[in-house]
C-alpha cells in the first residue's frame, strides 16, 4: 500500500507550489517594475478602446492585412501537411512489418519531428530571413516547419490508435501493409486527422500574424506600426480584426470537429 505522502498527487501539489514560490522570487519586486509614465500610458491605452479607428481607408488596410495573414497561414498549412503527413506515416511505423525496421523508422523520424517542432516558428523565420532574404516565402516556410513537426507527431499517434480488428480482417484476407493502410487505417483515421488539421490551422493564423516581427506584412505588422506611432485607437481596431478572424476560424473548426466526432 502506498503511504499518503508518496502518492502521486501529493508530490505533484508540492512540486507545483515550490515552482510557484520560486518563480515569485525571481521577479525584481520594487518601484521600477512599472515605467515612469507607464501607468499613464496604460490609462491612455485602455480609454482608446472606446474610440477605435473606424475611418474607411484604415478599415480597408486592416482588411487587406487580415487577408494577407490568412493567406500566409493557409499556404503554410498546406506545406505543413505536405511535411507532416508523410513523416507522420513513417513515424507511426505502420507500414513496416518487421520489428527492427519499425523501431528504426519510429524513433528516427520521431527525433526529426521533435527537432522541427522544438524551435519556435519565429526563430525559424528570423534565421530564414537572414539566410534567404526577406520575403513572404521565407515566412511561410518558417511557419510550415514547426507545424509540420507537430502534425507529424500527432498524425503518427492517430494512425497508431485506430481500432485493430478491421485491420486484422484485411490482413487475413491477404492485404499487404500498404493496402491495409490505404483501405483500413487511413479512412478510419481521417476524421481525427482532419479535425486536428483544422485546429492547427486556427493556431497558424496567430502565428502568421506575428511573423511581421521579422518584417513580413500582415496584421501584426500594422499593429507594430500603430504601436510605434502611439496610435492606440488603431491598435484596438486591429486587435478586433485579429480576434474576429480567430473566432470565425475557431467556430468553423469546432463545427467540423463536432460533426466528425459524431
Amino acid at each position, binding site marked *: 500500500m502506498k503511504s499518503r505522502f508518496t502518492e502521486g498527487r501529493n508530490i*505533484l501539489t508540492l512540486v507545483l507550489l515550490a*515552482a510557484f514560490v520560486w518563480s515569485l522570487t525571481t521577479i*525584481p519586486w520594487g518601484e521600477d517594475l512599472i515605467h515612469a509614465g507607464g501607468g499613464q500610458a496604460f490609462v491612455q*491605452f485602455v480609454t482608446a478602446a472606446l474610440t477605435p479607428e473606424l475611418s474607411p481607408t484604415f478599415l480597408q488596410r486592416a482588411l487587406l492585412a487580415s487577408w494577407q495573414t490568412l493567406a500566409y497561414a493557409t*499556404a503554410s498549412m498546406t506545406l505543413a501537411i505536405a511535411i507532416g503527413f508523410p513523416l507522420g506515416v513513417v513515424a507511426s511505423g505502420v507500414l513496416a512489418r518487421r520489428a527492427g525496421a519499425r523501431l528504426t523508422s519510429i524513433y528516427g523520424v520521431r527525433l526529426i519531428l521533435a527537432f522541427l517542432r522544438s524551435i519556435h516558428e519565429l526563430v525559424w523565420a528570423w534565421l530564414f530571413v537572414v539566410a*534567404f532574404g526577406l520575403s513572404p516565402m521565407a515566412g511561410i516556410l518558417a511557419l510550415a516547419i514547426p507545424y509540420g513537426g507537430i502534425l507529424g507527431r500527432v498524425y503518427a499517434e492517430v494512425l497508431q490508435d485506430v481500432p485493430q480488428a478491421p485491420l486484422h480482417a484485411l490482413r487475413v484476407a491477404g492485404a499487404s501493409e500498404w493496402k491495409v493502410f490505404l483501405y483500413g487505417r487511413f479512412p478510419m483515421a481521417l476524421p481525427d486527422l482532419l479535425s486536428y488539421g483544422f485546429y492547427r490551422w486556427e493556431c497558424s493564423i496567430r502565428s502568421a*500574424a506575428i511573423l511581421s516581427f521579422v518584417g513580413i506584412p500582415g496584421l501584426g505588422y500594422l499593429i507594430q506600426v500603430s504601436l510605434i506611432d502611439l496610435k492606440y485607437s488603431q491598435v484596438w481596431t486591429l486587435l478586433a480584426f*485579429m480576434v474576429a478572424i480567430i473566432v470565425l476560424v475557431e467556430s468553423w473548426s469546432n463545427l467540423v470537429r463536432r*460533426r466528425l466526432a459524431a
Partner: protein
Amino acid sequence: MNRQAALSQSAALPKPRIGFGGISLILFMSLAAASWDFILSDKDSGFASFFRVETWAGAGAFLTRFLGVNGAEPPAYLRRERWADMVGPAYETLAMSLLAASMVGIGVLVTFMPAARNVAMGELSASHSFSSRILFFLIRSVYIFVRGVPELVWAMLIIFFLSPGILPGAVALGLHNFGIVGKLSAEVVENLDPRPARALRAAGASQLQMLAYAILPMALPGFLTYLLYRWEVIIRTTIVVGFVGAGGLGREFRLSMSWFQYTDVALLLAVYLFLVIFVDLCSAWMRKLAR
C-alpha cells in the same frame, strides 16, 4: 426473424455522402488555392528566388558563419566560458515560463467553474441566477479575447507599461495561455458526468459544497494536464517574447543576431533546445502524477 432484422439493418446503413467534413475540406482547399494564387502573383513573394543560385549561395554562407567553420576564432558553442555565460539567461527563461504557468494556473482556478455552461446555467442544480449567466458570458468573452491575441503582440503592448525584464514576458505569455487553458478547463467541467453533483445537491449540499466536492476533484486532473501541456508551449515561446524586451534567451538571441555573431546564435539555440527537452520531460513526469 433474424434475417429480417439483418436485412432491415443493411437497408438502414448510411449511404456514402459528402458530409460537413467533406464540404469543409473542399472549402479549405479552395481557400488554400486562393492563398497560393495571392502569394505567387506577388512578384516580391520570394518564390522565384528559391530557384536562383545566389540565394542558395547566400544561405550557404550564412550556414558557414552560423556553424563557425573556418572562422578566425573557435565557434562559441565549443568554448566552455561561453556556455557558462548562458546559465543566467537560461535560468531567467525557465523562471519566466514558470511564472507565466503559475499565473495561468491561478487565474484559471479562480475563473473556470463559473465559465462552464452547465454550472452557470444551473444544469447541475436547480439554482441559477441572472448574475451567474452574466458572469459566464463575461469570463468566456475575456477568454476569447486574450487567446485571440498572440503572445508576441501582448508582449509588444505590455512593454509600454512594465519595465523590461522577466515580468512583462511572463504577463504576455500568461494572458494568452490563460484564455486557452481557461476555455479547455471549462470544457472539462462541461463534459463531466453530472450525476455525482446532482446527487450531492439532492442530498442538501449547497452550491459551493457541490462545486468543491463533486466538480473540482473530477475536473482537476484535466485542468492540470492542460496546464502542463501549455507549459511545454510556453517554454518554446519565452524566446519569442524575449525579442521585444522581456529578458532571458530571447534578448540574447536578438542581440547576437543584430551583431551578426551567428555562432552565439547557434549556442543559444542549443541551450534553448536543452531547456525545451528538459521541460518536456518534467511535464511528462508530472502529467503521469496528475492522473
